[in-house]
């Protein structure tokens, strides 16, 4: 075998070995990354959930509602629950706010006598209509969809609201 041929053969076998390793690695990676990136590939369908009776909440009142997220896994336990604040603006109009502060997502609480939502983490405060009253939140509380179905008040489950750099 000539020298040149030998070098070519060496190069070829080296590349063949690397390729032989890379191909199965790439194939096996697909389902592994599938597991890792699953949440981005599968869109969860949001559902309407009954959260209150219209007759249980007076005009002007704000109430905590707790509900189960859309399609929870059987082993989710209580971690699949979410909270929101339901406000009856008028006889027919209801609004609901996600309980997550728009600053860093901590749960805001409603102070009824003061008519304010207050966040325990960094001191964000919101008025009853969800607009920012004080502190670091960059935008009003996130509203979630709510509808009245006869006497049932239903809200549409929603992702945890994430504030982006452009809000």
């Amino acid at each position, binding site marked *: 075998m000539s020298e040149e041929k030998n070098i070519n053969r060496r190069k070829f076998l080296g590349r063949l070995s690397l390729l032989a390793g890379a191909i199965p690695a790439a194939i096996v990676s697909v389902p592994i990354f599938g597991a*890792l*990136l*699953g*949440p*981005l590939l599968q869109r*969860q369908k*949001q559902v309407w959930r009954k959260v209150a009776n219209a007759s249980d909440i007076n005009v002007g009142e704000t109430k*905590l509602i*707790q*509900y189960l*997220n*859309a399609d*929870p*896994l*059987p*082993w*989710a*336990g*209580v*971690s*699949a*629950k*979410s*909270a929101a604040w339901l406000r009856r603006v008028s006889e027919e109009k209801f609004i609901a706010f996600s*309980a*997550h502060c728009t*600053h*860093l*997502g*901590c*749960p805001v*609480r409603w*102070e009824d*006598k*003061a*008519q*304010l939502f*207050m*966040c*325990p*983490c*960094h*001191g964000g*405060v919101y*008025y009853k209509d969800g607009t920012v*009253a*004080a*502190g*670091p*939140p*960059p935008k009003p509380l996130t509203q979630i969809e709510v509808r009245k179905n006869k006497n049932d008040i239903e809200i549409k*489950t*929603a*992702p*945890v609201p*994430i*504030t*982006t*750099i452009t*809000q």
Partner: protein
Amino acid sequence: MSWLKKAGRWINDRSGLSEMIKPLMNHPVPPESKWAYVFGSATLFCFILQVATGIGLALLYQPSSDKAFQSLQYITYKATLGSTLRGIHYYGATGMIIMAGVHMLRVYITAAYKYPREMSWISGVVLLILTISMGFTGQLLRWDDNGVWSAVVAAEQMGRIPLIGKPLARLLLGGDTLGGQSLSRFFAYHVFLIPSLIFIFVGFHLWLVMRNGISEPTKPGRLIDPRTYRQWYHNMLRQSGVPFWPYAAWRDAVFSSLVIIAIVVVAVVFGPPALTKLPDPSNIITSPRPDWYLLWIYALFALMPPKIESYVMFFGPVLIFFLLFALPFISNKGERSPIKRPWSIIGSAFVVIVVISLLVVGNRASWSPHFKAKAITNFSIPQNDSLALTGMILFQQKACLYCHKINDDGGIVGPDLSHVANRMNEQQMIIRIVNGSQDMPAYGGSLSHDELNRLVAFLKTRQ
């Protein structure tokens, strides 16, 4: 020859164990490398402690969103020495972070990152990132209400990353919301993914110690010249180097041993961090706080002007880690002695002071409303001043007390109002209450004229 010796020889002959270990033990090190050199190995021993106690905890833990909290209660209250085991793992994390920090400061102050040890510094920064990630994911595995809310807060911070923020936040939570998928992921990261990366980088970091040798103690005026350094170092070791084992190793062994014993003592005395409530995100009566090593970031986000915050959340860490990675490229030769590089000492002191200050401030959390403020009792208000007396009740009902202190109770978000009447007149009080400020809600829309009068009447008695 006894049969034991024979067996030993056989094993060594067939396995080559001593061929592997002897060069490690006997490799020469600079003679004057003393106590400043013990922090890296102490970090490593803390990591080994974490692996060992982590395996212990994994024997008892249930990585399932619905059962993890109960298994933690089991570990803490029922399992044999479970509480101590949790404590050691928790304070082991603390020890590892402190030792890594001190090690890093030592390397920076003595410029040990300079030629030819740039890769040691870079792999060290990677290890720092991995260690902090372990701390964070470990806190989540406690899976109490603090755990679930910490996950949400982390997702929000990731959300600030331009363009890919939302998908990343979603990826962290494992879906739209917290749920069954969340804890499984945190468990996989904390127990498999990040530790295996740490093993790889620790291996690499140690290999570099063998390849380039540990940096010699500094001497003012002895400059690093990349053209001659390796030869000089080699000659220096040949002339005056001492075998690592036991002349340098004994200090590592003694110090690391003391660190581990201290961790165990602290764990036994103080116990693990208390478990809070169930991991129920719909229970909103909670005040999430990160573990201490992330408390300074929590403080930073409260203190920063809100306008720049979203940018700092993303660009801050990017800039810090860019600078850390760039350091050995910015300066990789010349002087190493801290006496000749006073800025390295000033810079390190600055970082330490800032982080400790933020930890103190974060622990105090003056920006958080004090929801537990008790009802104030009617001291020093004339009994016939009914306006002021009802104003005092309003002061509490309207949540003023959560943010303002009066005498002994109340929050410290806003100014102390114990003597407010001495510095503000009635008109000024009304303007402030009605209009609010950057950090105070405007009460104009929610207070009646009568309520406002009562509140002001009460505040006027605070002299």
